[in-house]
């Protein structure tokens, strides 16, 4: 006899939602939409609850409640308590069309700080290191074989370095859209640029193909996992285990 517990009810509810989503195979129907609305609503509500519990309460409310509010009067509270409160109040003014302009200050601060962090991280974490990596791949110690190194390893490393160099240059050339204008007025790339751009387009196509294959692989794996889950539910209902 199957014992109905919260875990079993949750499992049954999950299986039901899975079937409702799979019903999209037939066509867009009410069951699929109900499942989608439910997922969106639950996710939003849960995110709101997490934000209140993990952000608002510890950052804004707990300092008021802790130590009877005396720690608010200190200088340390200026940066850790008062400024966040002011910014939060200004942000809530966005709800009023008349006072919305006052909410632009925290928005500007968020956008400015976020952009600075992302751009700075991109430069120091991606652009410079990747450029140096591409340049180091052509260093003599990487091109020429080391002492006692098998030829196959050196050949593999050399070919890899050449492929990296060719892929990097050709891909950058493909995104260089400058061209000369001929007598007829049409623009044409030079022969060398056209060849390199074509090679770069091949590398880009291969990259996107790999990404698509990986996404397809992940989708198939998720599909299999879902059907495995349905099988477990059926086994539980039938076998009680």
């Amino acid at each position, binding site marked *: 006899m199957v014992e109905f517990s919260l875990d079993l009810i949750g499992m049954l509810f999950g299986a039901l939602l899975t079937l409702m989503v799979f019903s999209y195979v037939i066509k867009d129907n009410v069951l699929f939409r109900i499942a989608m609305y439910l997922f969106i609503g639950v996710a939003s509500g849960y995110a709101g609850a997490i934000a209140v519990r993990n952000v608002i309460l510890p950052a804004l409310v707990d300092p008021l409640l802790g130590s009877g509010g005396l720690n608010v009067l200190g200088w340390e509270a200026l940066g850790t308590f008062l400024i966040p409160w002011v910014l939060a109040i200004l942000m809530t003014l966005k709800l009023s069309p008349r006072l919305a302009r006052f909410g632009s200050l925290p928005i500007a601060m968020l956008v400015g700080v976020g952009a600075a962090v992302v751009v700075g991280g991109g430069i120091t974490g*991606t652009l410079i290191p990747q450029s140096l990596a591409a340049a180091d791949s052509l260093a003599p110690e990487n091109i020429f074989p080391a002492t006692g190194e098998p030829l196959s390893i050196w050949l593999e490393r050399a070919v890899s370095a050449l492929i990296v160099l060719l892929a990097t240059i050709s891909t950058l050339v493909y995104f260089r859209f400058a061209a000369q204008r001929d007598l007829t007025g049409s623009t044409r790339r030079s022969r060398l640029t056209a060849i390199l751009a074509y090679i770069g387009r091949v590398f880009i196509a291969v990259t996107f193909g790999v990404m698509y294959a990986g996404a397809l692989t992940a989708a198939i794996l998720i599909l299999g996992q879902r059907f495995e889950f349905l099988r477990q539910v059926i086994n539980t209902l039938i076998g009680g285990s």
Partner: protein
Amino acid sequence: MCSTLNPAEAETCVSCGARLKPLVAGGAHPEAEEPRFDDLPAGGEGEPDEPDDWLARIRAGVSEEPEPEPEEPPAPTYSETATGSPEWLSGMRNAEDPYNQGGPDEAIPEWMDEFIAAGEGEEPKSEEGDDVPEWLARVRARKAFQPQEDSDSGESVDDDWLNKLRSVPEPEEGALEELEQAEPGLEGLLPREDQPAAGEPPVEEQILPDLKPGAGQDPYPTPPAIDLGVLSDLPGVPGSPRALGSQAEEQEPEAVARRVSASGFGIDWGEGEGKPPDEGVAEDESGMPHVPALVSDESGERPVVEIDESSLASIELPAWLDNLTPQPGVEQAEEFEQEEGAVEEPDLAPATLPSWLEAMRPVDTFRSEIEIVPEDVQAVESVGPLAGLRGVLMAEPVVAIPRTSSATAARLEVTERQYAQGELLHRLIEEEQRESMIMRRPSRPIPLARWIISFLMLLAVLLPPSFSRLGLHGFSHPVDIPRELVPLQGLVNSVPTDRPALIVFDYTPGYSGELDNVAGALIQHALSRAIPLVTLSTRPTGPPLAERLLSELGAPYAAINGQAYLHLGYLAGGPTAVQLFAISPRDAVLTGFLVPETGGEAALGLGPQARAAVWQHPLLSGINRLSDFGMVVVITSGTETARNWAEQTHPWIGDSPLVMVLTAGAEPLVRPYYESTTPLVNGILTGLPAALAYENLNGQQSSAGDVWNIFGIGMLTVELILLAGALYGAAAWLLSLRKR
């Protein structure tokens, strides 16, 4: 005019019969004893009683010296105010003006009473005293022989403008009473109910009987100056001094007399001249047709009336009087059309203006063609040195005379293209206003290929659990170990067990089917080495996923929350929060998720103490920076999140390795960070095959083995479908080539 030289005594041309000697208006015969200009001042060189001299000069075409302009005739001119003649008479309008063709014959205004009284009491004065001018004597003599019925023709002309005036809508009674009170002099002009009926005799016969010829009095009395009040300067009022005095100053006395007779208040001051201008050519005593000089009746030209605009601006007219004034834009246009239609079409081709000039002209403001009428139709000049000649050019060309824009000028001229565009716009607007019916799209049947693919995929994922029942072996686990797995294994093995490893769950529940299996291999390896685990997530849904996976994987290793692992919870703020966490984890994360208070029991953490207890947990005792963690593992499904962690943490991560657990789709963009000579990512684990290989490498029991067969047969099915589609496309292409 044939230009044939004729003897000086000849009266008519021997060739064409045209009259060579001028005729004098008013019946003066060329052979009359008194010449036409006998009353000119003596200052002129030419003798006025010798008209043949100047006529001979004209015939000879001699124009050596311009003749001095004759001064204004002194005595008999009605334009001179010094003679005692009324000033308003000098300003009489031209008789040809259709709006001033005489005064009303039924309603004599009250102000005329004053005029009549003044006319009876005063005799017209002139410079010569009681001497009657010569021309007036001739007029009187001819009037004596003129039958009475001639005056009827003048009345009929007067009726024309009078009927127009009657047709004007009457003003309101209230306005009339106010006007009477304001302007007593206008009482006679206002319509009254007690006015004589249409069947009664003309009013001028009732109140002006003495002005009729044969009444024993001067039939042409010079009316005294009458104060017309507000109408004294009004040019539109018939007979007002302003309207009448503009032209008479420059015209000859007889011409003035004719126009006075035609435009007066029905007073028959001269028969013959009082004929309506529609008749075009009048006849003088000699029976010769004539027209007033410098005025073309056939063309319908109006004489230019010079109006003192400064005086007009000072006039304040009542509102009802504006309504009484004729509407020139409408009536003049109609009469123009009638007069122009009466002219016969000439035989000659009309002269046309060039197209560019046609385009510049205002619409319907003047005629673009100058009509040349036949010589027979042309009027004969009656006065002046060119009297008796046909085809005399007017003083002003037709096009130079300003005309008022007709009523048709207001009509919009639209071309066919403009009309079509307007119709199109009209239709578009109508269609916009029309309510569109809600059309229910018919449900399209699902393509057969979609059904087939769905069926095959469903069969593929349902079939593997039955492999054992069917006696089939499943897909073997991958034998080849990717080369990045060995360094990863060594990396995890090198992580100290006294320092917790940070595991970031940055994926949504949708990817848990893949990432739980992939990350499970690495987490199992860490749990097998008793490495404390601390979880974190930049997604709100991350902490529950972490708890579910760790509780599932930690069960074989007796790993429970609070002892083997701990959840820091949700890190809000995106890349900025990641950087802040890398710099100072304690400031970035203020509370945890399911942090156990005592023992291993998880608490909801609603109180401040409970939330603050996360950093007081023994697992996090030595953690102040990111580099204090023994290892950082990021489990993510997106390349953006992986790049953020790699970029924002590398300055503060120190010697702690950064490992990426990725989905298969995110690997191509993250791998460069791993394969770089100075890698930001120290280890990478991607996809289910790599996870199985890692488990095999570590000798662990495969947690992903359950879905391996499903994954394998699903991939095989997809490959077969792609192959079938490629073959179908190639076959279709070959068939199309064969058809060509």
